[in-house]
């Protein structure tokens, strides 16, 4: 095979690879760029208001949210998790969302507990009759574990749920 033939074959293979990639790739895929670029600072404030103030002042927080986003999307679905006797009712489940969605999680517990979401680093406190409420924009992609600090300290399985954030 001559040198030119070799080069032609490599070029052909690269073209085939590129075309196959474009064809195989799901159509609505806009790459990770925009979602990954969203400023972490935004996530922080978002999640802090979501996790820490909502537990006490639920209404005020909603107003704040609407101020920040002129055209609010329809209210996101709330995931409810119940912990009784240190165990998650129905076992720890995956919460599946897409990157950029607003996530709402409410954890009720029959004893005082601290619920921590890794990666996003949000902690909420729960007590009987006072659930821990989480509300934040899922800007980080990947799988993140939500754990109970009380169960972890007691040497039990601390997993409350897993948040799975897929790219859009």
């Amino acid at each position, binding site marked *: *095979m001559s040198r030119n033939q*070799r080069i032609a*074959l*490599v070029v052909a*293979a690269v073209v*085939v*690879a590129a075309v*196959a*990639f474009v064809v*195989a*790739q*799901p159509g609505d*895929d806009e*790459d*990770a*760029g925009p*979602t*990954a*670029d*969203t400023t*972490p600072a935004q*996530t922080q404030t978002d999640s802090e208001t979501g996790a820490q103030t909502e537990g006490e002042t639920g209404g005020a927080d909603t107003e704040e949210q609407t101020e920040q986003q002129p055209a609010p999307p329809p209210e996101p679905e709330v995931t409810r998790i119940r912990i009784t006797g240190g165990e998650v009712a129905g076992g720890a489940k995956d919460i599946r969302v897409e*990157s950029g969605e607003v996530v709402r999680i409410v954890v009720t517990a029959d004893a005082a507990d601290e619920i921590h979401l*890794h*990666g996003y*680093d949000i902690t909420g406190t729960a007590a009987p009759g006072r659930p821990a409420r989480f509300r934040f924009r899922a*800007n*980080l*992609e*990947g*799988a*993140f*574990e939500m754990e109970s600090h009380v169960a972890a300290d007691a040497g039990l399985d601390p997993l409350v749920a897993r948040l*799975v*954030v*897929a*790219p859009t």
Partner: protein
Amino acid sequence: MTLIAHGLVGRSDLPIPEWLFGWAAAMVLVVSFVALAVLWPEPRLERERWRPLPGGLGRVLAGRPVQIACGAIGVFLLGVVIYAGLRGTQSPTANFTPTFVYVIFWLALVPVSLLFGDVFRAFNPWRAIGRAVGWLAGRISRSDLPAPLSYPAGFGHWPAAAGIFAFAVMELVVSDGDKPENVAIAALVYSALTFVAMALYGVESWIARGEAFSVYFNLISRLSPVETRDGVVGLRRPLAGLAALEPVSGTVALLAVMIGSVTFDGASVGSLWTGIAPDIAGFFADAGLSPQRALELTFLVGLIGAILLVYAFYQLGVVGARSVGGGFSTGRLARAFVHSLVPIAVAYVAAHYLTLLLFQGQSIAFLASDPLGDGSDLFGTADSQIDYSLLGANATWYCWVGLVVAGHVAALTLAHDRALALYDDAKLAVRSQYWMLAVMVGFTSLALWLLSQVNS
């Protein structure tokens, strides 16, 4: 890194989607056959070609002052690892030692070696101490030291294979393997063993064959274009360093340990392993072991099983290659092609631990400021946090696939070049390549499959 994944990491990866898996697998096949057709018809990598860095830079970089400085840094870091592990907090995430050993030392040195050559050799604390002691002893006794024993040929790379296996057991099997104290004690024990072996066989010969991390990082650095020769840093063709590797007894086992341990780590979070693990653990528990010991023994069985499978699969390819003729023994062929497994092993490590290094590696910023976890702030970075937005899921997937395919291409190229050098007959060389190609495609498909299994 099972334990680490649960202990240290706040974020875990998503499995590659089906369409990307399919595309990548197809690409592996396309690349393989294109490579067969277009790769050079004469061996090229076997030829020596090395040039020193221009302007005396090569001599300065490998010079005595730089060597002493690097060695001192290495010894200092080993000291910090042991001190922080023993004296610091025993929470794996808040102590400097586990993250430094499992992420910075074990993982960050991989890309560094790939780019800049055998950097670990300069920083190797055991080598530095061994050489310093030898120099001091020579000064004091004012006579020649007794010559060390000659390194037994039968040992080959076996001590290194055993060392890397022990590290994998510590990392993946022992349930308290990421506890700072245990890491520090392991470092002490390993240091003691290394010094004894160096005293017996000499510093340089133990470093070249027996010391596990020296051998491991040297293998990886052979992919790099940077090589130090006779005290001068210079450049060579990429991959040529691997062609120059002299396989000894135990080299195949070492590569099987390297690939097998990553395979097991990847598979241990997948449904296949989590399906059978409880059964094996139940068997050991019935035999009277505590649940924790039963689980550890189960993981040990899994780890050894993965290593043996990798070993057997490679041997299968070698037996196949032997069947085409040429009159080589399987042992000879196994050693002749083992260097082509190195890029595959590196691709496994690079893809599998990419995000661990990228995200958990950031925590060294706050751990360095507060190594003991007692609230100190040595460099003012104790409050820094991990930025998980560094690499999105899509970008992660593309990096994985890119690394795996690149490793595959490098492996094919090496095997092809070696076949041309080994067989006089070009036809035999090509026919032996079908077998090696099948082995490579198998390993690469396994790597892709593991990446489609994470957390699924």
